[in-house]
């Protein structure tokens, strides 16, 4: 996504461009996972999100609703969106489960293309870890 600002949400994932609203959802999830947004903290409003990323407020709303549907955020009437208790744990669990599909599968596909065996890949991982 190109915008004059540098506040761009995460673009690609799994080699496919995520729709903008899902990018917004993922950005908020990242904040929770990274500890920048604690449980029971108030999440930024859709208008703030739209202004920050220079996107349509309806898109921001769609992203937030996605998180509400997923139980990551909940709505306090008249006040705003808040991070649900247990959201961070749930996200960590979900991402750990998806880790293999999201990160390992593309890496292994690339390894296959390069002619690396599984043993080669494991050796590279250990090298990266200790290096």
């Amino acid at each position: 996504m190109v915008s004059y600002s540098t506040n761009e949400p995460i673009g690609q994932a799994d080699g496919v461009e995520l729709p903008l609203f899902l990018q917004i959802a993922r950005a908020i999830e990242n904040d929770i996972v990274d500890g920048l947004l604690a449980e029971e903290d108030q999440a930024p409003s859709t208008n703030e999100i739209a202004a920050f990323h220079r996107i349509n407020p309806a898109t921001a709303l769609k992203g937030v609703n996605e998180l509400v549907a997923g139980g990551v955020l909940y709505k306090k009437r008249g006040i705003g969106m808040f991070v649900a208790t247990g959201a961070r744990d749930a996200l960590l669990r979900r991402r750990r489960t998806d880790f293999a599909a999201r990160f390992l599968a593309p890496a292994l596909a690339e390894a296959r293309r390069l002619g690396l065996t599984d043993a080669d890949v494991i050796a590279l991982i250990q090298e990266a870890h200790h290096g």
Partner: protein
Amino acid sequence: MSAVLELPVPTRSRWSQVPAVLAAVAGPLAWRLLWPLAVWLVAAGVAWVSLAGRNPYDGGHVDTFGRWSTLPSGILLLAGFAAIPVLWVWGARYAAGLGHDRGVVFAVTTAASVLLQAALHVVSLAAGLLELRALGTGGIHVFALETSNIMGTHDGLWNGSWVFALWYLTPVILTVLLTSVGFLRWGPLGLLLVLAIPAVLIGAAFVTVLVDTGFTWFGVLLYLGVLAGSIAGAWAMFRCVAL
């Protein structure tokens, strides 16, 4: 999925737009309605100076008791006609471009075109009468009306000039109005001429008929018919004008 639209659809009676349309058509400080008066005053000044210097001037003549010039009133008449295209090409287009109802814009601009002539005539008349009252028959008269010569005595000023204005000038007003709207509708000068020539011919024939028939029923019906037909034709063109 989209947010709730909070803006209500604005509704407003068409005719409540009239003051705003008039302001838009007349221009800043209503200059599009008033500029003929400025030209008229300048012409009056020029006529006065030339008569004072005793130089024979176009339209001026020397009476036994005073010096008269009908040039300014003639200029006011012409300026009044020239004001019509200005009202349409700039005023009406602007008002319609702002979003006002086209029917209201048409009605206001047509009324302004016709009533402006009447108003200018009243001003000219009033100036002539005031001047007459102030100066008697001596001195320099610059606000004399041409019609006072056509219709004879100065007492006939009222009858003479009104007949002239209302009866004989209407076809000219209509012609100018139709060509202005025709220009808006079709643009290029070619179309302007195409409309103007038959319109002027019809107008001339119309005037000739009326001079002969005068205030007969036939004359009046013909007059009203041409009036109605012209306005209907102008509206048919104006509603299709692209802005």
